């Protein structure tokens, strides 16, 4: 068949597709995305095609002229859609075109490697009482996979012409043209569907319609596809263990503990080395360069004490974050992390909480801001509100950096286990918060289960894993880097402005600066936790802006400038000495109190802003106040009890 030149069609009249040229019948290609529709369209119409935008949209629709036997037809390549219940502008164009009814024949393009999905769309098309010819693509691929459908049987079952085609090789195109030209005079319609009209009131919901249509798809598939292998696979066997209520949670806890152990043990020397490099040779070179250009003293202080301190804080966290991201990416790529949601769903429902809240909460362990967006999976506003109030209690990655420094400082041989314990505390707080809400302001909620599409288990591909880790590390450096850098620069400025003592700007002891004086005013409030120190108070205040800035603020406050030793090690030693003093000789209890306080005292500003946008100022303020009060009480209790043990 020779390809015809396309001609310019008239401007689209409405309904989403170009109006046909008078006297030329219209044929539409309908099918799922990626089934080979466009390849088929190109083969049928030739290289020169006319593309127009569907009216009122920016969706491009291709139209061309196709010689079908002795008849020229206007062929339209509709956007791919999985269903005639549109969920996107592209799909809406296809839906409108099918519903428009002004089409001679619909060519339903079915993918032989995913026949069921294609048949579902065909069933919906058939409900529109549309004349149909079926073109089956990818039959060679399907045969290679052992999925090859019996095309002849398919035609007998459907009651319409069915042609196997290959747009690349041209196979079957003549047979398709013959089938379409015959259908233009004697239209065929799919048979065997239940007797119902497209707007049948008895099946008024999309769900009911889907149930009926999939039952029809199953009957067709049973006739035309080879029997599938029903033997249990390795995934099935593994899931029997990992999804069981008794083994699932302990196994997950073990996995998380192992991840923390791995990252703390491996990351710690790397972190020390990196910050030592920045605080050592890099700082020396920077100092030498500043001396060479004879810059003012305040500039040296700003660059070395502000900017370089910020860079050191960011750089030192890269090994930790890279290892964490590698672990998370590996667990996610293997398919395991999605199982956690199923395991947690059962556990949550057993205590009356909605299992569907698990997804946003899991996201919250990465970052609270997108976790708030994830609450949209919950269908009811009050459920979304409850989940949104619990999200800040999930310990995000930014807080992990703080725990790690503190755990390495006070529990150098058990840092991983201590950090794991803080995460367990986070889960306990989420559950406790949920139970409290369910028994008070959210009594009317009915928990429902989470139904999640679980992927099969698979070995992660190293290259894909590497790319995932790299993109996550780059994103972390950009986000944390800009936050921490901004914070330490701002802190340097506040530390340079004198508040008492008659000092000049940039030549003031930290304790007499604006930063120091304000922090000293806040510090006594931390005395019940054994943390009555202005530097710790200052870092906690900074942490309200962003948790990533807490460690940087601590380093800034201690003004570590001893470049002969690793900055990170010197900071840990100074913090240890401070807490030993403020706690009256009970640094273990005070350090645990500090970590628990950091866990729950206040969401970061970005989280607060997103909560306010989603739920309003009243709920956001109430939740923040409750969280702060709870964190204060818990931290105080931990120190007061722990210091007496």
């Amino acid at each position: 068949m020779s390809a015809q030149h396309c001609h310019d069609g008239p401007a689209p009249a409405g309904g989403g597709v170009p109006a046909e040229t008078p006297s030329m019948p219209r044929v539409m290609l309908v099918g799922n995305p990626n089934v080979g529709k466009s390849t088929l369209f190109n083969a049928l119409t030739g290289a020169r095609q006319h593309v127009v935008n569907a009216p009122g949209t920016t969706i491009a629709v291709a139209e061309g002229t196709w010689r079908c036997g002795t008849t020229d037809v206007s062929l339209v390549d509709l956007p791919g859609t999985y269903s005639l219940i549109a969920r996107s502008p592209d799909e809406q164009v296809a839906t409108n075109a099918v519903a428009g009814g002004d089409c001679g024949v619909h060519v339903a393009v079915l993918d032989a490697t995913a026949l069921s999905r294609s048949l579902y769309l065909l069933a919906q098309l058939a409900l529109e009482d549309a004349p149909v010819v079926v073109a089956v693509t990818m039959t060679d691929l399907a045969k290679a996979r052992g999925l090859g459908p019996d095309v002849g049987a398919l035609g007998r079952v459907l009651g319409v012409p069915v042609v196997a085609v290959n747009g690349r090789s041209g196979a079957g195109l003549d047979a398709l043209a013959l089938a379409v030209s015959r259908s233009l005079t004697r239209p065929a319609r799919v048979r065997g569907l239940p007797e119902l009209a497209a707007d049948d009131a008895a099946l008024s919901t999309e769900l009911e319609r889907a149930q009926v249509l999939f039952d029809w798809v199953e009957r067709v598939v049973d006739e035309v596809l080879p029997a599938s292998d029903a033997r249990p696979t390795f995934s099935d066997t593994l899931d029997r263990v990992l999804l069981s209520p008794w083994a699932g949670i302990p196994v997950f806890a073990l996995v998380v503990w192992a991840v923390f152990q791995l990252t703390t043990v491996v990351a710690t020397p790397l972190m020390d080395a990196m910050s030592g490099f920045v605080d050592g040779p890099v700082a020396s070179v920077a100092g030498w360069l500043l001396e060479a250009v004879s810059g003012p003293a305040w500039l040296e202080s700003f660059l070395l004490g502000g900017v370089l301190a910020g860079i050191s804080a960011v750089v030192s966290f890269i090994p930790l974050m890279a290892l964490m991201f590698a672990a998370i990416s590996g667990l996610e790529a293997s398919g395991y992390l999605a199982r956690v949601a199923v395991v947690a769903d059962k556990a949550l429902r057993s205590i009356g909480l909605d299992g569907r809240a698990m997804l946003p909460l899991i996201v919250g362990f990465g970052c609270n801001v997108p976790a708030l967006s994830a609450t949209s999976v919950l269908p009811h506003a009050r459920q979304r509100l409850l989940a949104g109030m619990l999200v800040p209690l999930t310990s995000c990655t930014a807080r992990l950096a703080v725990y790690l420094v503190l755990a390495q400082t006070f529990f150098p041989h058990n840092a991983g286990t201590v950090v794991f314990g803080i995460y367990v505390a986070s889960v306990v707080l989420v559950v406790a918060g949920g139970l409290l809400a369910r028994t008070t302001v959210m009594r009317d909620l009915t928990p429902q289960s989470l139904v999640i599409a679980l992927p099969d288990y698979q070995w992660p591909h190293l290259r894909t894993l590497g790319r995932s880790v790299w993109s996550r590390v780059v994103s972390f450096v950009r986000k944390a880097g800009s936050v921490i850098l901004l914070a330490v620069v701002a802190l340097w400025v506040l530390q340079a402005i004198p508040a008492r003592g008659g000092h000049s700007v940039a030549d003031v002891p930290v304790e007499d600066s604006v930063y120091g004086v304000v922090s000293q005013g806040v510090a006594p409030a931390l005395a019940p936790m054994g943390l009555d120190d202005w530097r710790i108070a200052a870092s906690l205040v900074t942490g309200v802006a962003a948790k990533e800035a807490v460690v940087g603020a601590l380093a800034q406050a201690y003004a570590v400038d001893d470049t002969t030793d690793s900055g990170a090690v010197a900071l840990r030693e100074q913090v240890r000495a401070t807490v030993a003093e403020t706690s009256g000789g009970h640094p273990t209890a005070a350090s645990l109190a500090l970590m628990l306080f950091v866990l729950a005292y206040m969401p970061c500003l970005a989280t607060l802003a997103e909560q306010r946008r989603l739920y309003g100022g009243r709920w956001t303020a109430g939740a923040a106040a409750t969280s702060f009060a709870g964190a204060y009480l818990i931290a105080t209790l931990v120190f007061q009890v722990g210091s007496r043990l």
Partner: protein
Amino acid sequence: MRGPDGAAAAPARREGGPVSGAGSVFGSVVALMGRGFTPAAAARELGVSADLAEAVAAEAERLGLVVSSGSACGTCTPGAKIACASCPLSR
């Protein structure tokens, strides 16, 4: 035969669950997914093709009955969206 969650695998085609329409392949697949079956495992359990179960899962997701672990917040691009870098579920 037992399902992935250890519970006895009763004739799943007659189950109810989150979707009404006991006996429909659509309802049966979604019910099994609610118990932690992957679509492929649900297919094996029900004796239907994996392709059919995958199609049911996809349509159930479109209808809002099923969530995909990778689309919890609506985006899944850890490289493009900074806040998603540390998300456990992003790809």
